[in-house]
């Protein structure tokens, strides 16, 4: 009977995810999934003959308080690090479940298959935890977003992995628990070392992959305690994370291995970067930008991470409203890897009440550039870099880009000429149809809106 009830909860997850396929049904889908979760919790509390009610109750209360506090306070611009942190907590929870089983049982009595799932749960959960919190630190600016590389990094990772496997085998063969704790500690270290060499611009891939891992950790925990609801829920999340990971690496035209191990953006191989930096650019101010925008028929706005950093989502909506009020067609072109997690820009623009009909993805937006009068680029860089199309030597060659240089005029709002995270110079900035407006995105937009109103 309990099994059937758990199956009902797992079904709620599936239907809930299914309802995420449209903006109008999505909210009810999330609520349905949450209801499934609540059901699963209640079933467990009733069915498991809980003895330590104090521990359980206090844990639930503390967790609810902390989780709700974080979820309500977080700014939409900080969503990538918030998801990374929640993900890390989920991972360590799975590892702790395995740890409790290890403390409570004599490992040599457990069947080999249970031991394997205990170890998997601990390893995947620990890697997810430490990796997620390194990603959190990078996104929050606590540690540098640049790739951190040291000589022999690959060898260190290789040796650590081999040692971890060794400890795993030791536990399986002898059933001695010290090997379990050593394995957990090494897994934590591997999680840290796996994420520090990844640069900020590659974070959408890492966040997606860690998301997938937290699902696999939950599924492993499901095998440990023989519960199908955990296995189904974990498998769903595992595939969600994997699909998004593949979408992101495809959008960068790079392999997963390249993203994780190449230390992209350290400047190696990007030697072309400094060669053209001293070329002249056309500078513009708010009035120049306002004139170009106000006399256009069609405007395409390309937001990037700079928009999130500057908290400029409301300012950009003001500009879009002002231009639409003048009868100008305004759309937003959103590259799949714009921002720091998949769909990051869409969330920010939704927060500012930009109708999602105005948001175009790469395939929808790209054919429109030749008929677009003005493209306004707000803190995006690599996703509009024409070297990805024109220069086979470029490290980002082959990455699908928004071909903004096919529009009549391009205005780039950027704080300085410095290259983006990938460390690659952008020929677009020196194009004769490009106006460079050096400013913080929000201040620039506020000034442009004021200037447009003057016209």
């Amino acid at each position, binding site marked *: 009977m309990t099994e059937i009830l758990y199956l009902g909860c797992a079904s709620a997850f*599936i239907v*809930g*995810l*299914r309802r*995420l396929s449209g*903006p109008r049904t*999505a*909210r009810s889908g*999330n609520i349905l*999934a*949450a209801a499934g*979760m609540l059901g699963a*919790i209640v079933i*467990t509390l009733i069915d*498991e003959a*809980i*003895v330590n009610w104090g*521990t*359980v109750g206090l*844990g*639930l209360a503390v*967790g609810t308080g*902390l*989780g*709700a506090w*974080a979820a309500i306070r977080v700014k939409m611009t900080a969503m990538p690090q*918030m*998801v990374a942190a*929640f993900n890390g*907590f989920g991972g*360590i929870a*799975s590892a*702790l*479940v395995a740890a409790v089983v290890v*403390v*409570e049982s004599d490992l040599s009595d457990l069947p080999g298959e249970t031991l394997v799932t205990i170890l998997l749960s601990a390893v995947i959960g620990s890697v997810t935890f430490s990796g997620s919190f390194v990603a959190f630190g990078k996104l929050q600016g606590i540690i540098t977003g640049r790739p951190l590389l040291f000589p022999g990094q690959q060898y260190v990772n290789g040796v650590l992995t081999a040692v971890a496997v060794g400890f795993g085998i030791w536990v399986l063969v002898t059933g001695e628990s010290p090997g379990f704790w050593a394995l957990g500690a090494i897994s934590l270290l591997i999680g840290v070392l796996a994420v520090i060499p990844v640069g900020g611009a590659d974070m959408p891939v890492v966040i997606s992959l860690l*998301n997938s891992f937290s*699902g696999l*950790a*939950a599924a492993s*925990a*499901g095998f*440990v305690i023989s519960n199908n*609801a955990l*296995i*189904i*829920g*974990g*498998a*769903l999340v595992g595939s*969600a994370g994997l*699909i*998004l990971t593949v*979408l992101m690496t495809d959008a960068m035209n790079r392999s997963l291995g390249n993203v994780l191990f190449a230390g992209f953006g350290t400047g190696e191989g990007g030697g072309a970067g400094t060669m053209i930096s001293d070329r002249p650019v056309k500078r513009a101010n708010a009035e120049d930008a306002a004139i170009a925008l106000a006399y256009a028929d069609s405007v395409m706005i390309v937001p990037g991470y700079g928009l999130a950093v500057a908290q400029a989502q409301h300012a950009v909506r003001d500009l879009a409203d002002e231009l639409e009020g003048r009868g100008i067609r305004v759309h937003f072109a959103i590259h799949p890897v714009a921002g720091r997690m*998949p*769909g990051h820009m*869409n*969330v920010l623009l939704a927060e500012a009440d930009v109708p*999602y009909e105005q948001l175009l*993805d790469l395939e929808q937006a790209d054919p429109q550039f030749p008929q677009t009068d003005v493209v306004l680029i707000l803190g995006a860089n690599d996703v509009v870099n024409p070297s990805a199309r024109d220069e086979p030597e470029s490290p980002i060659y082959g990455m699908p880009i928004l071909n903004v240089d096919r529009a009549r005029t391009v205005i780039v709002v950027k704080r300085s000429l410095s290259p983006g995270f990938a460390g690659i110079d952008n020929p677009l900035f020196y194009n004769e149809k490009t106006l460079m407006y050096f400013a913080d995105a929000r201040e620039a937009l506020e000034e442009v809106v004021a200037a447009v109103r003057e016209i």
Partner: protein
Amino acid sequence: MSALVVGITVFVLATFVGYEVITKVPPTLHTPLMSGANAISGITIIGALTAAGLGVGSLAQMLGFLAVVTATINVVGGFLVTDRMLEMFRRPARRAGGQ
């Protein structure tokens, strides 16, 4: 079939279901998808509750308590933050006269 084989069967089938369901989610909802899926991965809370509720020794209780806290943060925070985002997506988007 042993419990392990049943578990693996369920896992593989659920992975395929997940693939079919999730490929239908449009890019504009990928962030809420990720945080919502992340909240679902907090289903490990079932294991945490069992572990904390039945633990005998003090170390087991301590670890179980931490498992419940972290899993609950994942579940409650994940669903709440997803709801906050989706509420923005569902708001009436039409603004008369661009206002």
